[in-house]
């Protein structure tokens, strides 16, 4: 199974990056997890020529080729960082590779709450018709006190959280398989085929 893991921040230091690096290593026998940085992606700004920058196209191609996507998001001001929101706007603006794509949301924060509010927002955002990702329901992985969560080798040291992560990942893998079978049998291409503008998106996702 091939998964893309998106580091939800442009910061040089991030425990969300550490979390994904750990997952990539820890689950390497079960899935190939490719970590994807967003720092190099320009801020979303609707291009006059309607063509997204090549960094966006590359990201979209990688997502399209993967069996599923993992987002690891920090929480800035009760929601996801602008840098991650910008990437999502690009995704919805272009080929919309997240449509029907299985998604797992995780997040790490220095404080106690572990990005709970940002994850709820991200779930709502990914539910927008122009994104239409298949987010793993009823599961959330919230890693609080993340500054102390990893040892020098980058291993997750909280035993209870490790067990939780193992379970969620197993569930996600099953979810990816079932979902991809469903999507193969019933392909819904309407949104992907539409040319995108915000004006169209706001007409209820272009379904008319």
């Amino acid at each position: 199974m091939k998964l893309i893991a998106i580091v939800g921040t442009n910061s040089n230091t991030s425990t969300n990056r550490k979390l994904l690096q750990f997952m990539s290593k820890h689950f390497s026998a079960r899935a190939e997890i490719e970590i994807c940085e967003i720092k190099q992606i320009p801020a979303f700004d609707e291009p006059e020529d309607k063509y997204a920058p090549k960094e966006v196209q590359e990201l979209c191609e990688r997502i399209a080729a993967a069996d599923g996507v993992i987002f690891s998001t920090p929480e800035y001001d009760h929601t996801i960082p602008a840098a991650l929101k910008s990437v999502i706007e690009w995704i919805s603006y272009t080929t919309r590779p997240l449509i029907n794509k299985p998604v797992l949301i995780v997040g790490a924060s220095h404080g106690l709450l572990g990005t709970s509010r940002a994850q709820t927002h991200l779930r709502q955002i990914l539910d927008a018709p122009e994104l239409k990702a298949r987010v793993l329901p009823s599961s959330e992985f919230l890693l609080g006190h993340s500054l102390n969560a990893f040892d020098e080798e980058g291993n997750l040291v909280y035993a209870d959280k490790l067990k939780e992560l193992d379970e969620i990942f197993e569930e996600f893998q099953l979810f990816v398989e079932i979902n991809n079978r469903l999507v193969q049998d019933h392909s819904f291409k309407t949104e992907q085929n539409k040319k995108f503008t915000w004006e169209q998106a706001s007409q209820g996702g272009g379904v008319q």
Partner: protein
Amino acid sequence: MKFIGIVGTNAKKSYNRQLLAFMQSHFSAKAEIEILELKDVPMFNESEDQSQTPVIQNFNTKIIEADGVIIATPEHNHSIPSALKSILEWLSYNLHPLDGKPLMIVGAAYDVQGSSRAQLHLRQILDAPGVNASVMPGYEFLLGRAHEAFDDAGNIQSERTVDFLESCFYRFMRFARVANLLNVPEEVAFEPGTYSVTAPGHNGDLPMTVELSSTRIEKIDIDTSGESQGIADVVFTRIPTQIIEGQTLNVDILSGASVTSSGVIDGVSKAVKMAGANPDVLKKRPKADSAINHGDEEYETDVIVVGAGGAGLAAAASVLQQGKNVIIVEKFPAIGGNTVRTGGPMNAADPQWQRKFAAIPGEGHTLQELAAIAEEQVDAEYLADFRIFKQQVADYLDETKNGKEFLFDSAIFHRMQTYFGGKRTDLRGNAIHGQYDLVKVLTDRALESVKWLEELGVEFDYNDVTMPVGALWRRGHKPVKHEGYAFVAALEQFVRGSGGRIITDTPVERLIIEADGRVSGIVGTGVAGQTVTVHAKAVVLASGGFGANTKMLKQYNTFWSEIDDEIKTSNSPAITGDGIRLGQSAGADLVGMGFSQMMPVSDPQTGALFSGLQVPPQNFVMVNTQGKRFVNEYGSRDQLSIAAIDNGGLFYLIADDKIKETAYNTNQDKIDKQVAKGTLFRADTLEELARQIGVEPATLVDTIAKYNSYVDQGHDPEFGKSAFDLKVATAPFYATPRKPAVHHTMGGLKIDTQTHVLNESGQIIPGLYAAGEVAGGIHAGNRLGGNSLTDIFTFGRIAGSTAIADHASAADGLTVRR
């Protein structure tokens, strides 16, 4: 009223912009609305702070000045656009202009939803603690089907919609008036008086008094007599100064002293509470002006010194003595580095002075033993000096054969001890000894350094010649008072008084290196995140070793079988090898990096040297946790450390009342406090002392009885201790718990005798100099106690002179560009 309207998108065409423009003209008689655009706002990135750029500052200032803010948001993917989120992140990171600001949310969208979901997200975002805006409740203005809402002149066509917008806006004007009342600074009224509280110190709470008049904090006094000076005094001066300057409790804590900083602020808060006022009001006040970042800084000078410890201050003083300018850049709030932590004695052979003192038992033996070393064991470059030394010993013995033994010394003896004392072989079989030319400079110019320090105001105690732990000989010049702080205080006064500038709280991030390899400056980060750039003709690295960097110690270690992850250090937490990394960035060669020194007699809890009773080694009586002696207490530091580690680490220094009198680090008050705290043990009998430290009483009594008999006979058949002073005989008795901790790193940048830093081909790196513990090659495998001060003041001084001599034409004055 004046409002700021923010167009919540960077799109070229926006109905939200149109909506704000309509509001601007429609309500122009009631209020002024200035519209701000997001087009030029960069994507927020916490690693690349741009809070000080004109575009972010424009938002910041205008919002602070406005009576309220109106945000018009579109909806992208069921939330607000990233462009709007980005400015909110900038305005909630280092700047907080929206804190308490009345805020109205409106939104326009192409579809019927009219940005309903984005508005709900925006409300939650604005509620986050870093933003903390006062968002008007209710009155949700959603403009759906926006493409049909406006006429060609940009007016909203529907009368009903305009009516609702009016009721929302008029409500907001009232809301803003009321909400802004919450922003009026609350008056505080104190019950005047002087309130006694406490501040946390290193050895327990310190008494603090806060004097309050009816409206002001007048005075804050912290009694630091129980503290070792220099370490925490910046906290105890700067924080009270800022509190009084700004009449505020909004004070930044100091890096490296967060507990102490918060403690001082908490102490003042408590006093404010005791005086019947609410400290939260003072915490809401702006910071003192001196604590605010006023933008990036750029300076030009003759010489930059990195690190404000003894070596750096000496280098700076020597530059100033030659009439040139200097800037010292120090990463910590406090100056003094490791120098403030030393016991104070500095090695320098001064035979004229030393011969006034009688020799003590064992010293003659030490001389003969050293002189008896076979010549084939002496490295070729030291041989000529060794022969002179042997002759000196022979002459001395001849002179004193009639029994009048005085304390012998010579620069060559100092040199031979530094050489022999530093000879070591690491675990891989690599032998190392001190580089002859450097050791020669160290020992030949040591006394000159003492005299130089005297000229700068350091007062030495000539009534006593001391031997610090691991020094091997009594040639320590000890300041009359304040231990290592004496050097720092005198040098600081000279440096500041001569126009030298010391920039604290500013770690150097990188060197400025020209295309031809010449080092011409530094770039650092100031206390408020501003970039500090200094250009100069020379950079002297004087930033110390890496004793507080366990990772680096482990990376280079080739001497100790193991360095524990949890190892303590006697060093300042600032000593993390920064200068070595900076030197490497310019291509510097390293020498002897595998050799580090443990201080065997460190506090087991903190690694500090100042706790307990620190007495001269001839009065050390070391017992392990079984109550038995285990080593020749007069041995070198690494012999003591290896023995202690082999005995489980923890051991005790046993002392009686007379030995206590020889302690150079303490006074009765400190002793009583430590006994009460349980970090020092005291008892009227040895049996009781043994019980306190969990040792079999009979064993300890036996150990001490044997030791006392060795003192009487001047000979230790068990461990070969070679110099004795006092017996353990007079109650009360003391036990100081000790454990080895990292004390010194002998390795470092390769330098020549003029302190030029050399590259791997042995060539001088132009513009770069190094002095003190950051440089290697002198002490090799083991540094003698008391030689570090000699090192920093001798080579620090030389670095200042060389830097000027190399650039004799450098004559520009200090200029400040902001």
